[in-house]
């Protein structure tokens, strides 16, 4: 590690140098480099490298030299609300110690309305915020005044933002800020990534500062007393082993991939918590208060462990965390490395991390990931360089709320944003037209355009619309969430669940939320009413969490492991036995071959295809194959895609996969099925919401009673029929091709693994068992469901002792 002696003292004002020494700290070389950077800079540093302080040093230095005038000087943007609280607290210390006149405030969706209103008139020197709140502020007429004096923007965890539409939105906002405050500097802070140059380009060009990578992490599988189960994703089998590890550590962070799994594992952990160690739970479905309590307890050091999902995945300052346990396969080598960084928040000590595979498939993935970490290989599923057009549409609409727009100037500004550098004027104009008129080919809203052109500028036709537009800011299209409350009226809020999950519940069903089992009573006024049922075993909690595809790199390593008996030496005995059993019952997947199997269970025929193409590509494959099965009268009912396989069930067996997997046919069918499938509709809903066609929130809406809105599927069908080339359909198609990941990955699979190996298995195979319990099933509406519908209607009539007598159903020509 570079010594402090090498640093030129002039760069750091004396009071700051003294403050550092008083803390017993030595500035890292990269922190000083960030201070010296003349323009925009991108810092790549492992967690614990003092990234955030590096981002703020120039601001603190300016404050020490009394160079912070009135108005907003530094804007800090983080993907997580929780981070802004933390940073605010950390930053307050040097500011207070040094007696700097520097006001620091945060502003997120949680900030009280009065404070937000005041910030518009009298912004602090340092504002800590999220991309969505920044977009909102830019939509106010006061935006030029608020940001006119801005000197610095610090973007934290920019590597995480760059992976989503939130990053596109933030880069558009950044471009706007550069127009409002041309002299400002931008500092991007990133964890270790495989391609820093691409990230620098993403933020519109920046000098790259690479920090010393620190010592190799200490990472291994957690030894468990029992073998992982054949199926399941919760890791409950290892609760006792994890408990022991927690007891041996100072503070443990237990990461798990989804919220439902976090709930279940938290419960399993408490069931074996004989010493009553304080252990908390943190995930995005919990109420804000519940999350805050855990964050505060964590900061106070009164917890020994926290079970968390992605909601805590980013660089919170975890201080005393000395052990990270990852339950479930990491899916992505890079993410694993970044998560390990959580532990031992000190630069010079190796991070300690243990992985607990949740089932036998995941053992393979964990071993493959560990081998990759050891080899120092990061997976690079590169980001598409083009920003989303739906995000641009939202951005245009928001800016129109701030002031009338000049299309030429706006186009120039937009193309200065990294992800939109290649946007053509024609495409920009199409987005502009959509925002202004709806962009419909056949029929126009002449009188009711949203934007109207007056004196060369685009004005909001009805300024009152700004309120609704601002209420719909954001690029994360979450499923509709319903609040869960205890008791009939006004009971304590416990958290939120997805509407689709609530719809699947019947009164009396039990599920887990906030670590307790509750019984579903009724749905009233968009609130799910429940009663705590401490003694009941819960029906499985299936509300969704993060879904991430195993990277190409990792999938290939797993397939190599399975296919190469010589490599089995690295595997535990039970995994070797499992592979051997699969080889006996059916076939083992091998590199170069495409393995599938058919078996029957519970009146359904199952077809499992081991593609190893990642969850998203498998979803595409599921859609393609079910479409072809429908054509071949195999009556498919649904499918589920995992990272390794696609499992389809239906009323008829697949005896020969060759006609289904014929590459020419798959390619040819792509466009047709793409238009029809449920996934496209799901993507359309997201695109239409982001682009502002569908408003999630309406002022004063969301009352009980008749569902005010209708399904976005109807809009999709209508557009397809009357305006098939509409901009939103174009965006949806493009996103589905890419987001359903890589038809490219399927192509590659077909090319490199041409040899089909199919078995008719006597029963569920060892490899298929885990697939049977996967969540995220996609129903196919076709001949199969029609048959089921008919059966169920008939069964109900029969059960009620009714016939169709006097109500004869008849068929007309």
């Amino acid at each position, binding site marked *: 590690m570079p010594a402090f002696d090498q640093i030129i003292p002039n760069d750091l004002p004396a009071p700051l140098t003294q403050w550092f020494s008083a803390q017993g700290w030595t500035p890292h070389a990269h922190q000083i480099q960030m201070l010296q950077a003349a323009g925009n800079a991108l810092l790549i540093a492992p967690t614990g490298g003092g990234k955030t302080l590096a981002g703020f040093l120039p601001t603190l230095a300016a404050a020490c030299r009394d160079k912070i005038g009135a108005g907003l000087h530094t804007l800090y943007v983080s993907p997580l609300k929780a981070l802004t609280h933390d940073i605010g607290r950390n930053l307050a210390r040097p500011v207070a110690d040094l007696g700097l006149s520097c006001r620091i405030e945060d502003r997120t969706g949680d900030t009280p309305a009065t404070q937000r209103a005041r910030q518009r008139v009298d912004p602090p020197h340092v504002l800590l915020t999220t991309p969505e709140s920044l977009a909102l502020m830019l939509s106010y007429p006061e935006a030029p005044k608020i940001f006119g004096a801005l000197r610095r923007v610090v973007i934290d965890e920019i590597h995480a933002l760059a992976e989503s539409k939130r990053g596109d939105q933030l880069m558009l906002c950044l471009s706007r800020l550069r127009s409002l405050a041309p002299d400002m500097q931008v500092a991007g802070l990133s964890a270790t990534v495989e391609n820093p140059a691409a990230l620098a380009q993403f933020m519109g060009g920046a000098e790259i500062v690479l920090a010393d990578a620190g010592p190799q992490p200490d990472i291994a599988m957690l030894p468990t007393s029992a073998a992982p189960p054949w199926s399941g994703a919760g890791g409950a089998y290892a609760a006792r082993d994890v408990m022991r590890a927690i007891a041996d550590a100072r503070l443990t962070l237990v990461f798990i991939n989804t919220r439902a799994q976090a709930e279940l594992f938290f419960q399993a952990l408490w069931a074996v918590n004989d010493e009553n160690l304080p252990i908390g739970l943190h995930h995005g479905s919990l109420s804000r208060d519940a999350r805050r309590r855990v964050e505060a307890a964590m900061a106070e050091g009164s917890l020994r462990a926290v079970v968390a999902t992605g909601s805590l995945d980013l660089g919170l300052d975890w201080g005393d965390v000395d052990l990270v346990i990852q339950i479930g396969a990491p899916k992505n080598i890079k993410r694993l490395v970044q998560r390990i960084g959580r532990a031992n928040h000190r630069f010079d000590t190796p991070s300690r991390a243990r992985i607990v595979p949740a089932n036998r498939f995941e053992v393979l993935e964990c071993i493959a990931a560990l081998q990759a970490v050891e080899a120092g290989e990061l997976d690079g599923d590169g980001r598409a360089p083009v920003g989303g057009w739906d995000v641009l549409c939202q951005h245009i609409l928001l800016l129109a709320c701030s002031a009338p727009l000049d299309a030429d100037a706006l186009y120039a500004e937009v193309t200065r944003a990294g992800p939109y550098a290649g946007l053509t004027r024609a495409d920009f104009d199409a987005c502009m037209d959509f925002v202004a008129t709806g962009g419909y080919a056949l*029929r126009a809203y002449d009188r009711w355009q*949203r934007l109207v052109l007056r004196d060369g500028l685009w004005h909001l036709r009805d300024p009152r619309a700004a309120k609704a537009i601002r209420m719909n800011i954001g690029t994360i299209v979450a499923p509709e969430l319903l609040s869960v409350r205890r008791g009939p009226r006004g009971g304590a809020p416990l958290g939120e669940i997805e509407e689709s999950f609530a719809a699947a519940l*019947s009164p009396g069903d039990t599920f887990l939320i906030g670590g307790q089992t509750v019984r579903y009573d009724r749905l009233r006024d968009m609130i799910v009413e429940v009663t705590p049922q401490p003694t009941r075993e819960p029906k499985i909690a299936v509300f969704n969490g993060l879904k991430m595809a195993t990277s190409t790199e990792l999938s290939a390593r797993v397939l190599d492991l399975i296919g190469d008996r010589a490599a089995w030496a690295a595997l535990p005995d039970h995994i070797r036995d499992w592979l051997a059993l699969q080889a006996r019952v059916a076939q083992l997947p091998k590199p170069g071959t495409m393995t599938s199997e058919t078996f029957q269970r519970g009146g359904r025929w199952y077809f499992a295809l081991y593609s190893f193409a990642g969850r998203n590509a498998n979803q595409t494959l599921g859609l393609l194959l079910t479409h072809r099965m429908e054509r071949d009268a195999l009556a498919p009912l649904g499918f589920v895609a995992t990272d390794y396989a696609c499992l389809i069930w239906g009323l008829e067996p697949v005896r020969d996969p060759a006609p289904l997997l014929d590459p020419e046919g798959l390619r040819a069918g792509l466009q047709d099925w793409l238009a029809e499938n449920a996934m496209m509709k799901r993507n359309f809903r997201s695109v239409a919401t982001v682009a502002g066609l569908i408003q999630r929130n309406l002022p004063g809406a969301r009352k009980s009673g008749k569902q005010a809105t209708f399904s976005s599927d109807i*809009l999709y069908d209508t557009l397809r029929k009357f*305006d098939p080339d509409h901009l939103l359909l174009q965006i949806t198609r493009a996103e589905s091709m890419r987001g359903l990941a890589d038809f490219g990955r399927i192509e590659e699979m077909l090319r490199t693994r041409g040899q089909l190996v199919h078995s008719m298995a006597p029963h569920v195979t060892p490899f298929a068992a885990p697939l049977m319990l996967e969540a995220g099933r996609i129903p196919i509406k076709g001949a199969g469901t029609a048959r089921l*519908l008919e059966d169920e*209607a008939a*069964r109900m009539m029969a059960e009620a002792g009714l016939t169709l007598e006097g109500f*004869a159903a008849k068929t007309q020509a």
Partner: protein
Amino acid sequence: MNTCSFRFHDQSFIARPSGALFWPERGTLIVSDLHLGKSARMARQVGALLPPFETRATLERLATELRDTGAASLISLGDSFDDDLAIRELGAERQLLDDICQSYDTLWITGNHDPAPVGLPGRVAQQDQIAGLYLRHIADDGPDISGHYHPKLRLAGQRLPAFLIGDMHLILPAFGVYTGGLDHDAPTLAALVPQGRAVVTGRDMHMVPLPLPRVTASRAGRWSAKR
């Protein structure tokens, strides 16, 4: 395509997959809640620019239903227009509407969205009575045929528009394209039709008893469809 015929207060009716009701003895097609001009109203009031094709889509479906049933007359049970202003803003679709009214004797029952429609071809009334049955927008003292609630019913994991047939009330699903709906077991609807039958629309039609029995045998089916 199949249809479902049933009797309600000594009259025979045919429920159609489109959500329209045909009364063979009278040669009358009954529809409800067309909500014509909804996208225009949304644009005017909330600034949402939805695909402005639903009026055309709805009227084309209606014309097809009239032709296929061989109906001589048409009754629309209210909320035919998303608001009274929508009638003036039909634009090019006005021709489709005029064509229908010219070929079929048309009665427009008023609804809460279109309480005082002006400038419509055909007759306008708050309610009507035919063969002892009231025809109105919102169910009241029966026996009556009405709309308003846009009833929907969940069956085998799908939520589909449905006809509800009770002792005193026959309630139609919405015929319009851009319409949401209310579950058949929501308190208001359950009070109007505590027991009887429902006819589920869609690709095919299915009749089920109300209230729905809890069919335990079908849980497996739900499992595969829902999760």
